[in-house]
């Protein structure tokens, strides 16, 4: 019973934080929309795409980058959630949270679930606005993408949690931007298909191919077109477990980094 209470409290706190930070919601929407409506518009005709699965015919560049931008929202939110944990640590509210008489992994999972649910809401808001601009996917795609978004959101949230256990101060978050978000986003299939990367450099292609964010984007891309990409599913699941384990280890009071620092 107390487990559920804690879960509810943590998710409610995430939701409250979200409701109170309307600017954050807007910023999270504006970022992918700028990419979609400004950046992609210029490439609309310039970038000739050949037909690659899951697409059955030629598509505009806007259509191509929609899954990548869904991934971008999840990625930024995952990191934002990590940032809030660092903030909590500085303010002292984390101490309260971590002293709850429940396993640490449960508290982290609750936090992760709350953050992912909010990310998914933002992705749907983004997809709705994209649809208003005529950039759509098959109708059922909006339903089948939900589990893909949830898994990708959990993976990126877990990565954020793992990172947050290593970052002591708020100021260091800029480093996360430079060394995690940007490489993860740009070295993936979010903006260009992998075969396009291979044309310029095999090494670049190989880096993109092992980047878990690539697989998260591909999982979302295929799910939007009612298809399952098993390889991407495997990769994302493994990455989620690995990042999750790292986060639990990072926050473990016995062996974790927190104690060492204290």
């Amino acid at each position, binding site marked *: 019973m107390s487990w559920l209470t804690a879960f509810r409290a943590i998710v409610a706190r995430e939701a409250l934080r979200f409701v109170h930070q309307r600017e954050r919601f807007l910023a999270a929407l504006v970022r992918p929309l700028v990419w979609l409506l400004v950046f992609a*518009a210029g490439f*609309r*005709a310039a970038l*000739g795409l050949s*037909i690659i699965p899951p697409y*059955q*015919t*030629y*598509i*505009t560049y806007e259509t191509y980058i929609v899954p990548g931008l869904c991934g971008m929202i999840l990625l930024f939110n995952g990191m934002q959630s990590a940032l809030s944990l660092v903030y909590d640590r500085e303010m002292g509210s984390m101490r309260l949270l971590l002293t709850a008489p429940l396993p640490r992994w449960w508290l982290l999972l609750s936090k992760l679930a709350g953050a992912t649910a909010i990310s998914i809401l933002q992705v749907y808001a983004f997809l709705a606005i994209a649809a208003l601009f005529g950039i759509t996917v098959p109708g059922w795609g909006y339903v089948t993408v939900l589990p893909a978004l949830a898994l990708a959101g959990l993976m990126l949230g877990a990565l954020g949690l793992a990172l947050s256990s290593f970052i002591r101060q708020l100021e260091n978050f800029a480093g996360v931007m430079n060394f995690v978000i940007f490489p993860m986003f740009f070295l993936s299939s979010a903006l260009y298909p992998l075969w396009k990367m291979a044309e310029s450099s095999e090494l670049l292609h190989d880096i993109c191919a092992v980047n878990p964010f690539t697989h998260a984007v591909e999982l979302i891309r295929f799910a939007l077109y009612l298809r399952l990409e098993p390889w991407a599913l495997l990769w994302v699941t493994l990455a989620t477990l690995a990042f999750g384990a790292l986060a639990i280890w990072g926050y473990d009071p016995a062996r974790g980094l927190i104690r060492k620092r204290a």
Partner: protein
Amino acid sequence: MIRTTLATSALALAVALPLQADEIWVTNEADDTISVIDIETLEVTRTIPTGERPRGITFAKDHSVVYICASDSDAVQVMDPETGEILHDLPSGEDPEQFVLHPDNRHLYIANEDDAITTVVDTVSREVVAQIDVGIEPEGMAVSPDGTIAITTSETTNMAHWIDTETQELFANTLVDSRPRHAEFVKDGTELWVSSEIGGTITVFDVETQSEKAKIDFDLPNIHPDRVQPVGFEFTNGDEIAFVALGPSNHLAVVDAETYEVENYILVGRRVWHMAFNADRSKLFTTNGLSGDVTVVDVASRTAEKTIKVGRFPWGAAFRPTN
């Protein structure tokens, strides 16, 4: 006895085989072949060799034979669509590019690109009935539904030439924009539409007076106007909506045939050229020359659904019902 056994086994075979789906036939200009697309599975089921550089393609009204303009063989070939066998060639004049079958199902009107003439061939006697001097580089061909008027458009003279099919003589010439490619009679033959590739327009004529009634322009966002080159076009049931292939802009335009307004654009393959509908006109198949494929467009939702690889430089398309 043997004959009965054979007939029975043939019948058994026919029953055992699933019903054949309708087909779209596509001429591949650079491969000297025809790709046959099964409308149900949307896959190429047959590739049939033809003469050199096949372009225009049309079926006889009863679909018993298919006529193919083999431009570099200087012939119109007549093929059995069941077997893919060339039955015979028709005399066509030099470099036949496009043609149209007269409603009498007997006379073919053929544009001879290099000779500046339109040749009329009787498909039964296999003889040239008439040769009519027209403008330089004739291409687009159309015959009115009542069969009284034939149209040839000439690419270099930039004209639509109006031919009286009784006398096989010109009775009017009307100017259109640069390089006219394709012509069609619509609305029970009261209107004539002519596309101009370089001019980037479609000119609509009133057939009775041969006067210009409207001009349709295309304006694609993000695409240079030079690449917007209207070529082939087809109409939905009731001639309400026209789909226009815009060549190297890689898009189809959807035009309201009443108001002459462009409603939207659909992305298809590269250098979209001609197109054909299925039986109920719910699906449209476009030939994309440079990308070597055919895009299937859903007419109701106006979206491209699938693109199918065919031969090199697909040019013309024609529908063949099989049931």
